[in-house]
């Protein structure tokens, strides 16, 4: 019996039953789909499961009751019926539950379904290899049936869905291929029956589209920038550092898009119309322009001022004013949409569904990077993970020990550091503002007459701003050394928020200066602002380079040579990403004032990628903590959107709606505001017939506040509805969770009860085992032990047969009662077998009960149970039923026939079986009792399933 020691445990059904009611389909999908324990796997390997299989095979060869069953002429129909009913019920059950699952996609359902089927199949054959219980062809039939079901379901899907569904099946390629070929064969046979030109055509069109789609995907992958580098980085530093580079690449794409739009719709038409820039003769290229952006550049298409306000009338007319306005507006809208979409998607997957408790052990284990390919990095990661796991343990223990005074002092430190950092940010903002005013006083108004020195002075403000951006975050990091938060994540958030405040203050002050001071006093003020932004972008880039040199290289040198205590620096993802965000904000603000600023940004990001990569690989070590990379990325996208993009958008919008464009230069000269370009255009449209609808849209929608009011109301309403839905879902989740816990409690209770029951009959099984060993195992010896066992089994089968007979004979017995009676009979029989064994030990001579199934062992029943329902003929169905009911009442004292009660029985039966096998028996612990119990358990299980399916 050693082979069965684990079989209860190995039995998927054991782990399955608690989820019967809730998510049965999902339960133990693990098995069998893959080779290790697949029922289709061939025996005879050195692997553990193969070995087990063989042992089992041996055991079953000796098992008497089974041999007995298979020789009985009446029995085969039972087997067939048994299997038949189960697998006929399957699809219905699945369809029903599938229908109840509203939101899951088709392919997901498919996977689940397939897995559900295989799970059930396996729970039918608990030891993983059914061949000792059922003839091979029966098994093959069943497997074929399941496959047929799957194929049928696949046939019902559209081509694209089908491919997705097949892909998502957790099988090996070979099995998938088989399924697919079957589906295709069916399809083609169907098509040959009703060959329609239309169907053919649509098929080929869809095939072409699929081809085209996969071709596009492949092309996209071939174009994928920096793929090898990215792989290298993630192999050495893990996913969290990779987020920086992914973010950088993403921003680069934004800028490429922006460049293409601006260049295509603003610059190209201008250059086509007027290729030579009208540069005054006294202005020449001096070299410093590359840094300052003034002088020569001022007269090119780089800035707002270089653009014309004319309508180019060649073969086609091109309204420059309108083009300039619409291009920028459309670009901003596109950016906003892209940001919102990517933000919403990652919010859903990373925040709404995510576990609120950070740093839990599972989170750490699940986030192991399979990307890591560097041996050293893997080792380091393992060490870090160990430290983190230990910390999570100690944190759990420590959390309760924090005293009030500690709490207070911590709060004080928080307050102080927040106060300090805010003051610092405000101070920086104010100093930048006064510096700007000072610069305006210092420099002569006419930029054309500047000397080199004066030109260089313009770099003062960008220099100071970048210096602030470089140094103050370092101070903030220093604060973090004293300011301890309860979790690492909060620590990072605090740092990020402080840095965001700083950058917002600085940008806010600069924008205020440009909008309020420059716009009122300077003649061609848009170009001046554009130049200032140009300088900021350039100097910021220089400082980023310096920063990675000083920040990472120097601290690496210090860490390795001078102060090994500090250690090699880590790559600070948060700080670096914030720098990127800041740079991107500059580019967004500048899009109106200097439409070609994205070119600069593209160069900057491109160089920065390589720079950071080199700095990373030479100076840094992999991060100590596996932060939640995905969540951080969401945060960064959100930050990029909320204060920064929205800020830039509002500044551009304010500029074009409220500020007066300069009189002498730029596309909007002579208008009250830039938006006026649209009004002028609409005005010209009034003469053209057939364009009344454009005017109507402009008048009634774009210019009407009521429209925006209504849109806002609708959006608010939607938000409210979705909010409510979310709340409802949360409630539902909590309820379901409670239900699972309740089921678990039920189970524990039953297990305990069972345990106490077993301890109250001590060593019964042991004795039985001894006895069995003494007597032997073969049926022709007619030993009492094995006979009583088999008689009990016979009883069970009998009951079953009765039940089947009732059904097939058309006797109007209510289905659920009959099924439960069959079940109860099985249970009863099983219990009797146990009791019998015990009794037999007490009276070693025993009773020789008959071997034939029909004469029932009534005497044992009478004596053992005392209260049996009379020595009637057990073939008589009502009698059996009555007995069953009594037994049931006795066993449970229960009254209901609900499905949960049946489940309890199942649990008990299986548990008994397991107990039987867990008791350390001698090596020749006889197989018969085990397998009969097993069969009964399976019977019971099937009954339960049948009934369950009926119940729904």
């Amino acid at each position, binding site marked *: 019996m050693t082979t069965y020691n684990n079989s209860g445990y*190995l039995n*998927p059904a054991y*782990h399955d039953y*608690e*989820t019967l009611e809730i*998510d049965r389909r*999902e339960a*133990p999908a*693990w*098995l069998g789909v*893959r*080779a*290790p324990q697949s029922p289709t*796997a061939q025996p005879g*390997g*050195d692997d*553990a*499961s*193969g070995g087990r299989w063989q042992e089992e095979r041996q055991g079953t060869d000796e098992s008497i009751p089974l041999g007995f069953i298979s020789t009985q002429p009446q029995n085969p129909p039972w087997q067939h019926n048994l299997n038949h009913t189960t697998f006929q019920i399957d699809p219905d059950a699945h369809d029903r539950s599938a229908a109840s699952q509203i939101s899951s996609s088709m*392919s*997901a359902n498919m*996977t689940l379904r397939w897995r559900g089927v295989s799970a059930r199949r396996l729970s039918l054959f608990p030891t993983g290899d059914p061949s000792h219980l059922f003839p091979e062809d029966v098994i093959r039939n069943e497997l074929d049936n399941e496959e047929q079901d799957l194929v049928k379901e696949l046939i019902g899907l559209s081509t694209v869905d089908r491919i997705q569904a097949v*892909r*998502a099946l*957790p099988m*090996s*390629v070979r099995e998938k*291929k088989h399924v697919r070929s079957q589906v295709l064969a069916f399809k083609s046979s169907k098509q040959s029956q009703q060959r329609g030109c239309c169907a053919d055509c649509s098929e080929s069109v869809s095939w072409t589209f699929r081809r085209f789609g*996969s071709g596009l995907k*492949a092309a996209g992958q*071939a174009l994928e920038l920096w793929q090898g580098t990215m*792989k290298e980085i993630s192999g050495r530093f893990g*996913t969290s550092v990779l987020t920086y580079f992914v973010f950088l690449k993403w921003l680069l794409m934004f800028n490429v898009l922006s460049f293409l739009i601006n260049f295509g719709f603003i610059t190209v038409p201008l250059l086509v119309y007027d290729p030579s820039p009208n540069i005054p003769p006294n202005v020449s290229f001096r070299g410093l322009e590359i840094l300052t952006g003034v002088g020569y550049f001022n007269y090119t298409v780089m800035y707002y001022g270089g653009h014309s306000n004319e309508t180019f009338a060649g073969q086609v007319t091109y309204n420059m004013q309108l083009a300039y306005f619409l291009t920028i507006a459309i670009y901003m809208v596109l950016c906003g949409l892209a940001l919102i979409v990517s933000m919403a998607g990652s919010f859903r997957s990373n925040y709404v*569904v995510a576990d609120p*408790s950070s740093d839990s*052990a*599972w*989170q750490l*284990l*699940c*986030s192991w990077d*399979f990307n*890591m*390919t*560097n*041996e050293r990095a*893997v080792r380091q990661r393992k*060490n870090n*993970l*160990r430290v983190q*796991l230990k910390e999570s*343990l100690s944190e759990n223990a420590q959390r309760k020990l924090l005293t009030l005074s500690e709490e207070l002092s911590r709060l004080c430190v928080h307050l102080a550091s927040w106060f300090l950092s805010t003051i610092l940010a405000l101070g920086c903002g104010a100093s930048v503002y006064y510096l700007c005013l000072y610069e305006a006083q210092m420099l002569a108004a006419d930029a054309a007459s500047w000397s080199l020195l004066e030109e260089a002075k313009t770099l003062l403000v960008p220099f100071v701003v970048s210096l602030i951006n470089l140094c103050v975050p370092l101070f903030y990091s220093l604060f973090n050394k004293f300011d301890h938060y309860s979790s690492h994540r909060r620590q990072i958030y605090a740092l990020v928020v402080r840095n965001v405040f700083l950058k917002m203050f600085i940008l806010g002050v600069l924008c205020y200066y440009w909008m309020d001071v420059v716009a009122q006093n300077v003649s061609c003020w848009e170009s001046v602002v554009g130049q200032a932004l140009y300088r900021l972008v350039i100097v910021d880039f220089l400082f980023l380079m310096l920063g990675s040199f000083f920040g990472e290289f120097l601290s690496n040198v210090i860490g390795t040579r001078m102060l090994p205590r500090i250690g090699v620096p880590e790559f600070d993802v948060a700080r670096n990403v914030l720098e990127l965000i800041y740079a991107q904000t500059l580019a967004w603000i500048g899009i109106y004032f200097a439409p070609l600023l994205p070119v600069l940004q593209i160069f900057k990001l491109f160089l920065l990628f390589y720079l950071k990569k080199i700095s990373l690989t030479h100076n840094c070590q992999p991060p100590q903590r*596996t932060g*939640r*990379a*995905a969540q951080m990325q969401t945060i960064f996208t959100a930050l990029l959107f909320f204060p920064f993009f929205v800020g830039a958008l509002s500044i551009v919008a304010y500029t074009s709606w409220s500020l007066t464009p300069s009189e002498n230069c730029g596309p909007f000269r002579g208008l009250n505001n830039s938006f006026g370009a649209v009004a002028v255009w609409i005005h010209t449209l009034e003469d053209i017939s057939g364009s009344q609808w454009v005017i109507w849209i402009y008048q009634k929608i774009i210019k009407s506040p009521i429209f925006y009011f209504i849109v806002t109301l609708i959006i608010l309403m939607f938000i409210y509805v979705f909010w409510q839905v979310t709340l409802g879902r949360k409630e539902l989740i909590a309820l379901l969770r409670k239900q*699972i816990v309740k*089921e*678990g409690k039920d*189970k524990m209770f039953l297990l305990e009860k069972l345990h106490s029951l077993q301890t109250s009959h001590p060593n019964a099984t042991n004795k039985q085992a001894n006895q069995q060993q003494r007597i032997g195992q073969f049926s022709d010896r007619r030993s009492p032990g094995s006979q009583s066992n088999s008689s009990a089994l016979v009883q069970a089968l009998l009951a079953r047969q009765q039940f089947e007979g009732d059904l097939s004979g058309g006797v109007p017995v209510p289905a659920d009662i009959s099924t439960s009676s069959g079940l109860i009979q099985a249970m009863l029989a099983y219990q009797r077998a146990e009791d019998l064994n015990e009794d037999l030990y007490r009276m070693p001579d025993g009773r020789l009960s008959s071997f034939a199934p029909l004469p029932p062992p009534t005497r044992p029943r009478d004596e053992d149970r005392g209260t049996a329902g009379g020595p009637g003929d057990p073939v008589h169905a009502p009698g059996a039923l009555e007995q069953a009911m009594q037994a049931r009442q006795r066993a449970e004292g229960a009254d209901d026939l609900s499905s949960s009660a049946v489940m309890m029985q199942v649990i008990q039966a299986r548990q008994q079986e397991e107990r039987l096998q867990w008791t350390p028996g001698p090596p020749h612990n006889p197989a018969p009792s085990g397998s009969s119990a097993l069969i009964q358990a399976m019977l019971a299980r099937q009954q339960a399933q049948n009934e369950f399916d009926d119940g729904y």
Partner: protein
Amino acid sequence: MGGNTSQLSKENVSEYQELTFLTKQEILLAYKRFSELYEDRRSSLDPRTSRIPLQKMTELPELRSNPFKHRICRVFSTSEVKDGSLSFEDFLDLLSAFSDSATLEIKSHYAFCIFDDDNDGTLNRKDLEKLINHLTSESEDTKLTRNEMEQLINNILEESDIDKDGTVNLSEFQHVISRSPDFVSSFKIVL
């Protein structure tokens, strides 16, 4: 053996494309890498039957330092003698499950199989202990102590074992996975 790429016919590639989450380039690259590893010179490479033994497979740079390399090979192997050897189709299966576009469903299913060291269909205490050891232990002295391990496993079970049966089954595991957003991005092997 690099010239064997022609063996993979166009029909084969498009079939694999339909059956896995991989693109054409990825399949061809996989084939190239596979034929580089394949060294049985007596017979030419047949995608269906030729197998690379486990030892050889784990020398692949992408797998070499992976703490789960043996488990991964065993889980994806369809070998009948259960030696963990991979045929090209198994290899594609592996890459497909670890690819970017594989669904969370598939990924978590295979992750569960990989973590389930004794193939019994649930993560019991032994499996969890092995998992933690795989991910942490370097040598005997840096190992987590017995006590810590117990506590850790208790925490894990407390966290994820919803029905309190002492083990983590697949649905519980998938529940955990669905709540840890980093899983999808880290359960990835790219050639």
